């Protein structure tokens, strides 16, 4: 096979905030995880495994964030997912009967039935509830590169203190090693939030590369000779790769991008809202509030309101996904052919997406990826899939520049996380960062009893959990404002209580035990990570 003219790096950022709530029988937010498991993580695992089985060589890069790995490996959530999928199976069995005289719905119900049974098999039997081991196997097979992220997806540019950036990175790297048995080579900076100098921290923990948004490199100093079609090195010797806008837009845009195609499944029409209350009651939230079940029978149809959507046709939608994969590949070939003429090397197109976009929002997304990977392997020789580390091995010599402060959020900077809806959090967050740094300085070299160590560890967990960029994000979108605000306040409160406990030596052990049980992320946390 001849050398390709250029490379494509597909990067999927898989992340959910830590939404484990043992204190409730059923928390709505845990469904975010359960839906992502059924609609995104399991379909991706199935696709990767099938590709390997079929001898299709491919490369894909995925960030599995520490909160996501923690939740996927948490026994309580595993148990709850199993209940969740069992309930779904119960419901879909009823649905197959209910729709038997409506073939246009019945075929979709049967499709779901197959998928739900498969999800249960993959989850319970194949991976013994541990999906992370599934991803690890694909990494070990050399097809997938799993990268890390901030410990709790904290938006680094608003951290104020380098010690806090250090903690986000150090705890994440430790957690990666614990779970995946080796060091992470790369990192997905939360929200692609980069502030010059943060790369020094990455360097310290052996991270070889990170991803920025386009303007992170484009507006870097000095000017990037190859634009964003080649990585650059920061002065710290850590490489930065930037997102390609053209390939991004084709997927990310709901209107002009692929996911808006009329044949694809409509996200907002769900039987959790559509069907008779008494019939659906056992399958919605225990409080009786209607929620999405994941069973949706309609397609986007066109610019019509939800009441006028037409029945979904899975096979037609899959055909569309194949067509779109062909289009995406064609565009990348053209792009690469053109770029290769301008550059003295093979260009790299970096195409990062939210992993949950594939399957959860864009139901056919995982199959789009499957088609794309197969087409790239069988149908052409212009582009080849690559991971960022492989590209760096191929081209170890790169331009040195300082990337610009940037994020991949709205308008490209910090506005989404710093606006009228959420700016009130920073005075509290910065205060607990200060106090945590103070605790490290005070206690790092002191002999500690077990109780003190437990308090310090839990305090570090609370700081990190408060820092998740998801809370500010949700406040800004106003989707679940109360929940996000409560989470921020709760973690600040808990930290302050722990801080007082250790400072006054007046320990409420029962309280400590309760929040250890509740916020049980990072059992082996290095609480001294809040230092430089």
């Amino acid at each position: 096979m001849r050398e390709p003219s250029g490379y494509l790096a597909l990067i999927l950022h898989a992340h959910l905030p830590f939404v484990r709530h043992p204190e409730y029988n059923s928390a709505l937010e845990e469904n975010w995880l359960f839906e992502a498991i059924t609609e995104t993580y399991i379909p991706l695992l199935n696709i990767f495994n099938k590709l390997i089985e079929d001898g299709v060589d491919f490369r894909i890069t995925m960030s599995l964030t520490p909160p996501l790995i923690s939740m996927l490996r948490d026994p309580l959530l595993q148990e709850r997912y199993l209940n969740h999928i069992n309930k779904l199976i119960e419901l879909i069995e009823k649905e197959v009967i209910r729709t038997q005289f409506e073939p246009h719905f019945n075929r979709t119900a049967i499709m779901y039935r197959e998928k739900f049974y498969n999800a249960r098999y993959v989850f319970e039997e194949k991976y013994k509830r541990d999906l992370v081991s599934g991803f690890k196997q694909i990494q070990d097979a050399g097809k997938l590169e799993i990268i890390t992220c901030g410990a709790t997806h904290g938006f680094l540019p608003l951290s104020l203190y380098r010690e806090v950036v250090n903690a986000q990175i150090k705890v994440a790297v430790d957690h990666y090693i614990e779970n995946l048995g080796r060091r992470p080579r790369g990192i997905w900076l939360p929200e692609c939030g980069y502030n010059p100098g943060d790369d020094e921290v990455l360097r310290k923990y052996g991270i070889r590369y990170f991803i920025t948004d386009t303007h992170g490199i484009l507006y870097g100093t000095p000017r990037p000779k190859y634009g964003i079609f080649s990585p650059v090195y920061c002065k710290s010797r850590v490489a930065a790769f930037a997102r390609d806008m053209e390939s991004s837009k084709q997927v990310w845009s709901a209107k002009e991008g692929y996911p808006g195609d009329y044949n694809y499944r409509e996200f907002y029409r769900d039987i959790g809202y559509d069907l008779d209350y008494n019939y659906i009651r056992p399958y919605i939230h225990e409080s009786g509030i209607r929620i999405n079940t994941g069973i949706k029978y309609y397609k986007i149809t066109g610019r019509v309101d939800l009441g006028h959507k037409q029945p979904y046709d899975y096979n037609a939608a899959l055909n569309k996904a194949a067509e779109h994969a062909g289009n995406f590949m064609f565009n990348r070939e053209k792009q690469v052919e053109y770029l290769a003429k301008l550059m003295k090397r093979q260009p790299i197109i970096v195409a990062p997406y939210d992993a949950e976009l594939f399957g959860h929002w864009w139901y056919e997304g995982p199959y789009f990826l499957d088609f794309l990977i197969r087409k790239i392997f069988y149908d052409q020789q212009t582009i080849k899939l690559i991971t960022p580390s492989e590209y760096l091995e191929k081209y170890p010599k790169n331009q040195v520049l300082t990337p610009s402060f940037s994020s991949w959020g709205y308008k490209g900077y910090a506005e989404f996380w710093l606006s009228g809806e959420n700016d009130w959090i920073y005075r509290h967050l910065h205060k607990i960062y200060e106090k945590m740094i103070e605790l490290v300085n005070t206690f790092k070299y002191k002999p500690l009893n077990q109780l003190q160590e437990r308090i310090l560890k839990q305090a570090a967990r609370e700081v990190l959990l408060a820092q998740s960029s998801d809370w500010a994000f949700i406040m800004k979108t106003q989707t679940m404002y109360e929940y996000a605000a409560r989470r921020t306040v709760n973690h600040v409160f808990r930290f302050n209580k722990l801080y007082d406990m250790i400072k006054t030596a007046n320990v409420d052990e029962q309280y400590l035990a309760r929040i250890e049980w509740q916020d049980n992320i990072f059992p082996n946390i290095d609480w001294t990570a809040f230092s430089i």
Partner: protein
Amino acid sequence: MAMKKIKKDKGESDKELNTKKQKNKRQISAKKVTISKKQVKKGKTEKEIIKETKPVDTMEQSKMEATKFYPPQMDKKNGEKIIKYEEKKAVIDESQIQTKYGDNKIVLLVRDPYWCYAYWDLSEELINNKRKEIKPEWGNYDLILRIYDVTDIIFNGNNAHKFNDIKITGDANNWYINVWEAGRSYITDIGFKTADGHFILLARSNAVTTPRDKVSNITDEEWMVVDEDFDELFRLSGGGKFGSSEGFRSFLEMNLSSESVSSFSSPSPKPEENKGFFLVVDTELIVYGATEKNAKLKVKGEPIKINPDGSFSLRYHLPNTNLIIPVEAESNDGKDKISIKITVERKTE
């Protein structure tokens, strides 16, 4: 109440989407011509590569991302409902936190190339004390933010390139500040300004630098090769297989700074399958040292890259064997040469 809020926002976002649609239409037509245009063009410069980049609608992306955290939609049949969870355990009220810390601090954050955000927290005590410093003849006074352009200078309070005063109104404890220029550094003071121009400082912020908003004019190129084996390098730093590595790192640092060449054993990861009693011992050898920055160094006959400060270190897995490791250094001008031979033996009895 919660649900009402969502409803209202949904309406707003629909509207926003509509205006986005108009914009996107333009982008589509622009996209269609790009490919053909590319092929016609002959003059290929780096500028063109840079031009390749077109903006994505990040608001749309955020909206899509937000579906990960979807709220329950309105329930038409059962009216509005707010979810009340049944808690398993009685807990203390964790919903109240201090609103004011009184730590006499002002913090500046960067929002984007043109906007910074400042919040402050001043104690009554400070405010009252500072008020006393104001002499009646100075006239009325206002609370102001004084924002300074401190790009490339060490700020001492009066050497800024320029500054601007912003009058704070109401009981505000935070402010969005429109700054002059992208890619510049700023500091803000908060204080009282009197009618005749006296300024009484209450607190001074940290310095921030706003991002650039365009492609750099600096075209000097510097290239670098990073071909070191990172995994190896960070195993050297005490990382790699040693999960939580603090203790091991300091041990390694101690060893690296001591005089002797030492080989040492390190714990291997615990085999997961084997639940019984076990002992695994492994040995590794570190060869390290320093020479002149521009010297040529060979270890076991192989040229070795030395660090910019002249130091070097190499790490070997140490099997049961006799190892002879010759280390040779040659000065840049070739006049001086030193060689040291190390012999190491490992035997498992």
